[in-house]
């Protein structure tokens, strides 16, 4: 499940600070831009999904007070597929136990300012898995150059 550290892999280790999520976006943006199979629109999907995963990892480390441990973004790109693993040390969580959002037509929807990150990440990636590590979470996302699951619901 985990990405091996091969010569083709780029690792970014960032502190648990909101300001550096933009650096993670820049790096994944450059990696995707280097693969001509990804058009601008699909590249934007990848940037957004990775941004959500890094934001969650950083926020989880901040709220669990793991400020001195870096968050890792591990990227690899191969023949029209980009794979990214975001690793945190925030103690882990159960993504299946998250309360589902109310239906769009439900006025209660407006009570939910948060909780959009993981749904977005699932819709924008072709495959995603949340893995428990010894001290946190590893989120592995695959993106294919042709949009697979980004159609409006």
């Amino acid at each position: 499940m985990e990405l091996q550290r091969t010569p083709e892999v780029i690792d970014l280790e960032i502190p648990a600070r909101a300001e550096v999520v933009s650096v993670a976006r820049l790096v994944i943006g450059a990696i995707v831009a280097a693969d001509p199979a990804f058009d601008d629109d699909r590249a934007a999907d990848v940037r957004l999904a990775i941004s959500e995963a890094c934001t969650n990892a950083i926020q989880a480390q901040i709220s669990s007070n793991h400020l001195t441990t870096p968050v890792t973004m591990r990227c690899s790109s191969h023949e029209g597929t980009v794979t990214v693993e975001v690793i945190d040390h925030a103690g882990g969580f159960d993504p299946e136990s998250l309360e589902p959002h109310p239906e769009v037509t439900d006025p209660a929807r407006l009570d939910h300012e948060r909780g959009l990150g993981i749904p977005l990440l699932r819709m924008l990636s072709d495959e995603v898995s949340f893995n428990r590590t010894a001290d946190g979470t590893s989120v592995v996302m695959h993106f294919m150059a042709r949009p697979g699951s980004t159609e409006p619901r």
Partner: protein
Amino acid sequence: MDLRIDVGQQGSWTVLGVGGEIDVATAPRLRDQMIAALSEGKHNLVVNLEAVDFIDSTGLGVLISGLKRVKTHGGEFRLVSAEQRLLKIFEITGLDAVFNIHPSVDEATAQPPSPGI
């Protein structure tokens, strides 16, 4: 990496022009600007996203909170965007059904606010 916000007035509408990237680091500033406008009695807000290059779920959450606050004050809340990329994010999250989105500031402000609707 930066967020720019300017505030203008068009008739009874207060227009927040937003540029740059709205993410976990910058979204709080947009929220603060909306709260500031409301506290100055400006209850009808247009948030112009035309110059926004990136928005994430934190940014969407701040727009939702803006809409809620505006409604609480009996005002009206409109968004401006004609960017396919941005509109797609509203669509896949279902938020296009929640927000009143116009393709330009002129179209968003053409009609006066109809509070309570």
